[in-house]
């Protein structure tokens, strides 16, 4: 399945003389819409943030995948890309930012520091060894820092995950 098919609207079109109708699942439509309009939070602590800025820019251009609306406040964001080391003092702040984001929310852990502490694993007294100690992570991107292509790949992987998620149905079942 190529990229073009992934972006196509999910469902079967049935043509009729005065237009047409379409059969699809509500979950599929909602997930299609959600996955192609992710709003990331403008959050960066260190080196990886620079590579994230490169991904925003013209050469890599993540708006091709619907990520272009960078939000300054967590209340309007549904994706947090943790780019850079998280230390003990920053951990409560990150948790608070995550808590402020509306559901459904997603996390990409960018770079070795966020996976395990990376270069700051040994002999350090202040680094959190992996942000999954603080918040749940959807996609891990290795690298120090990862290339922009790797970040784009992680975003496409996240879109796959959202498309296969039955989020809406789960909400109905709860009620």
């Amino acid at each position: 399945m190529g990229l073009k098919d992934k972006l196509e609207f999910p469902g079967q079109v049935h043509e009729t003389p005065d237009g047409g109708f379409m059969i699809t699942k509500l979950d599929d439509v909602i997930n299609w819409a959600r996955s192609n309009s992710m709003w990331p939070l403008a959050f960066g602590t260190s080196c990886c943030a620079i590579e994230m800025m490169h991904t925003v820019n013209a050469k890599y251009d993540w708006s091709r995948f619907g990520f272009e609306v960078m939000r300054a406040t967590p209340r309007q964001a549904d994706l947090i890309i943790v780019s850079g080391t998280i230390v003990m003092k920053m951990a409560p702040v990150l948790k608070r930012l995550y808590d402020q984001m509306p559901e459904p929310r997603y996390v990409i852990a960018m770079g070795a520091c966020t996976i395990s502490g990376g270069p700051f694993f040994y002999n350090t007294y202040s680094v959190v060894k992996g942000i999954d100690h603080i918040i749940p992570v959807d996609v891990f991107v290795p690298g120090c820092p990862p290339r922009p292509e790797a970040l784009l790949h992680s975003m496409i992987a996240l879109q796959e995950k959202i498309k296969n998620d039955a989020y809406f149905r789960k909400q109905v079942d709860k009620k």
Partner: protein
Amino acid sequence: MLLGEEDHFNEEGEFVINIGPQHPSTHGVLRLKVWLDGETIKKVEPHLGYIHRSIEKMSESFSYRQFGYITSRMDYLSAHMNNQACALVVEKALQVEVPARAQVIRIILCELSRLSSHLLWFASAGLDLGGVTPFFYAFREREAINSIMEETCGARLTQNFMVPGGIITDLQPDFQKRIKEVLKQFKDNYHEYNEILIGNVIFQNRMKDVGVLTREDAIALGCTGPVARASGLSCDIRKHYPYDGYEKIQFDEVILTGGDSWARCEVRMAEMLQSVHIIEQLIDNIPEGDIVAKTKNVIKLPKGEFYQRVETARGELGVYIVSDGGSTPYRCKYRSPNFSNLMAIPHISKGHKIGDLIAIMATIDLIIPDIDR
């Protein structure tokens, strides 16, 4: 509340707010506690440590070959200069002579990363004041420089290219050709930078007479780099304490006397051209020969104390090593340029409006991991 537990208004009726640690215009996780009277700033207090990664403690357990590597994560935009400082301090202690080829390549790469660092300043200064387009312009050139870095050093950002005694690997065959292409591209586009941001009346009005730092204050606060040079203080380490053959190179130290945000912008814009000028002198004259001097496999520094300073894109970086004769540093201290430049912010933003604080922060151009280390 997690940040700032006190009531927002204190007894004097001042309004206390926190800018950061998560704030789109602080370029990282700097937290400034600001006391306001209406919109006027009464006092600013920096709170640090949101990216304190204990680099100095880690350095005490790394060998002299390893300890430089962690510094490219400190000021990641001047990664080459940070590595160079660590390599130079070991060379100074061992009295190793660096081959001429390695010295020239070091200078070319350092100036290239200074250029790319100032480009990032240009991008984010525009972004902080609401101009998105300069961001795309500057990253066009940064992307070209990054791909040269990747081809030469194997990494786009945290290069780790300088080792004690020289450089880690030789150049790629079309290094010179690609550098010339980038320089040509930059020089052809330089007028665009002036047209889109620097020549913009709104930008100039936001910058002129804002955040004036006098020469005396710059000395007292320990400011270095473009921040101090905009206040008329001659402090370029490349001129005063030349290293790696900077004494043989023709370039001007850009010194302005305005001291305001606008002068800091002009210094950086002029320094970009100086970096290009330095690279142009060297690019056709890279000598042949060795790229690294012979050192022992396990480096042991003689007992004593060693201090080495280099000029990074943001000012004077000092590496202070205390050796007890072993294979790891006994104490390793980084005198980081951003830490001293940060102290200028509380001093010069007093009495300005809160919007000007963003403009001041943009021109001081801080890298927070270098402050916290």
